[in-house]
């Protein structure tokens, strides 16, 4: 299995000085291509900081982050933007769709930033929306859709540009249990199609659906196990 993500001795310190908070404390972590990983921790454990780090939304105070073997830990804002655009598909707890845009336009957005032409963009966005079962909601705006549907739009947006990593931050946190099951089903299907999926959650029930479970607390990795109960659907 090829190394996709490699984090080496990463620390993230907020408020350096007297009241410093070590959100990440010498973390080492490797994730290979095609893995389904859950990172579980209580709030304040540092899991969100880790997710920001993995998603190139934040830079480490010390240590290094290699993506595809390239050091991405100290890049300019624009370089980070490009990495996020090409390498990472985000699925957020709060969906993070742009309210004034339709489902289709939301899905097209990352492709616009990548510079994909209109025709190709529409084709990709169309395919992505179809694959999450939203054929009939393409022209709807987020406020015209249920939470589960919005999250499916967000997933379509994340996969439209076919990034190698899907980063899901509490993807079911705002959803009822039926929608949660639906979303997890889609996420697992994406994994089975060959994508690397990293789920950040505080919910053991969600984490239990992953193949590998990493537990984090106080900014340190407590355990990193292969889930014995994991079963392919």
């Amino acid at each position, binding site marked *: 299995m090829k190394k996709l993500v490699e984090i080496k001795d990463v620390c993230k310190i907020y408020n350096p000085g007297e009241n410093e908070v070590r959100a990440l404390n010498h973390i080492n972590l490797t994730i290979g291509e095609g893995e389904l990983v859950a990172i579980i921790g209580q709030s304040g454990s540092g899991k969100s900081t880790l997710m*920001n780090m993995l*998603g190139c*939304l*934040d830079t480490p105070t010390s240590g290094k982050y290699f993506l595809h073997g390239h050091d991405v830990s100290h890049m300019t*804002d*624009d370089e980070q*933007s*490009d990495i*996020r*655009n*090409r390498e990472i598909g*985000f699925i*957020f707890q709060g969906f*993070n*769709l*742009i*309210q*004034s*845009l339709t489902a289709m336009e939301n899905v097209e*957005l*990352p492709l*616009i*930033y*990548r*510079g994909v*032409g*209109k025709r190709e963009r529409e084709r990709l966005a169309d395919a992505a929306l179809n694959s999450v079962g939203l054929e009939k909601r393409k022209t709807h705006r987020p406020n015209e859709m249920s939470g589960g549907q919005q999250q499916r739009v967000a997933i379509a*947006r994340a996969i439209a540009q076919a990034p190698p990593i899907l980063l899901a931050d509490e993807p079911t946190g705002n959803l009822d249990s039926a929608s949660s099951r639906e979303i997890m089903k889609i996420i697992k299907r994406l994994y089975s199609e060959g994508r690397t999926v990293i789920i950040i959650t505080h919910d053991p029930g969600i984490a239990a659906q992953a193949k590998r479970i990493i537990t984090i607390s106080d900014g340190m990795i407590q355990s990193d196990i292969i889930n014995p109960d994991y079963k392919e659907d």
Partner: protein
Amino acid sequence: MSKLGEYIKSAIKQMKHNGYRTLMTMLGIVIGIAAVIAVVALGNGMKQYVKDQINGIAGNYGIVMIDTSKTTDFFTPDDISLLEEELPDIKGASPNDYGEGKAKGPRGTFLATVQSGSEALQYAFGNKLIKGSYFTRQQVESGQRVCVMLQNDAKKLFGTDECLGKEIELSINGKSATYTVVGIRENTNELYNFFTQDMDYSVTLEAPYTSFASDYGYDIGKWYQLILFTDQDVLQKRCDEAKVILTNAHGLRGANAISSYSMADMTGEIDTIMGGASKFLILVAFISLVVGGIGIMNIMLVSVTERTREIGIRKSIGARTGAITMQFLSEAAILTLSGGILGIILGIVLAKVMCKMINMPLIIPPTSIVGAALFSIMVGLIFGLYPARKAAKMKPIDALRV
């Protein structure tokens, strides 16, 4: 540049989304641009109006003067002949003796102003001859008692403008003589009427200098100024030439006794005055545009704060700083351009209404429209830059946390 197209599309969408606020924000720009367009149109219309009116009253003429403190010489009919010979393209030259007195016709006696000169005096006024004919050189040289009057004056004196061949009694300086009407001129224009409206009613007559001078005791063929009539475009040149010709003829070189002045100088002065007024008004309009621009900046800053989360989302899925800057700059520019277009329309309507009200020609130079549109885009770009940079520099994690 498909990306720019995307930004513009999303900007228009955003504007529609905030319809009412968009309108209120644009208001400053709308008013500023409307003011510029209206001021430029009115300024041009006014300039044209004043020029037309002055040309209407005065025609195109220049004056050559002889300074009596520097020489005992004066102009004579020979000088007129000389000018006509040396400057063949002029319409003519005339002395101008002028007297005030009374004119008596069948319908009563009125105050009268008499302009006397050669047959070239017909070019002195812009109003056309509508009946009869102007007195001829032959009539001037033979000293006939003939005159030309205005249509309104004819109606006053005779009760009709069908008065060719009829006579009036003209008294000036206590002397009286009878003159025959040979021509009727159209009435003078509005500006002239405006200048004379508070004066006592006075009829205006034109008569040959020969009969006029001998009847009322003026020196015959002894003048201190001559009027030169020619086309506007060569007026200045011909006046200067006339000055040289007469200076040489009278042997006054170096004495600086003969000077000339042309109506072209006067239209230049009008341009200067009107130009100054326009500049001032444009400055005022410019200030209102700057104020409008600050309004735009303010609302864009509010918009950036409101849309922090959107900015975070866009950045998290790969928008570069440049893309966010461009997005907000396009929004500001489209906002001000729309304001500019509304302002142009409003300005044209305003100018039309005002020109109609004060009866002036409407002149809207296309450059002012293009200029106003470009300037309104500029206002958006300049005042949108700071909010756009502020948006673009947000860190995605900070922006997403909101």
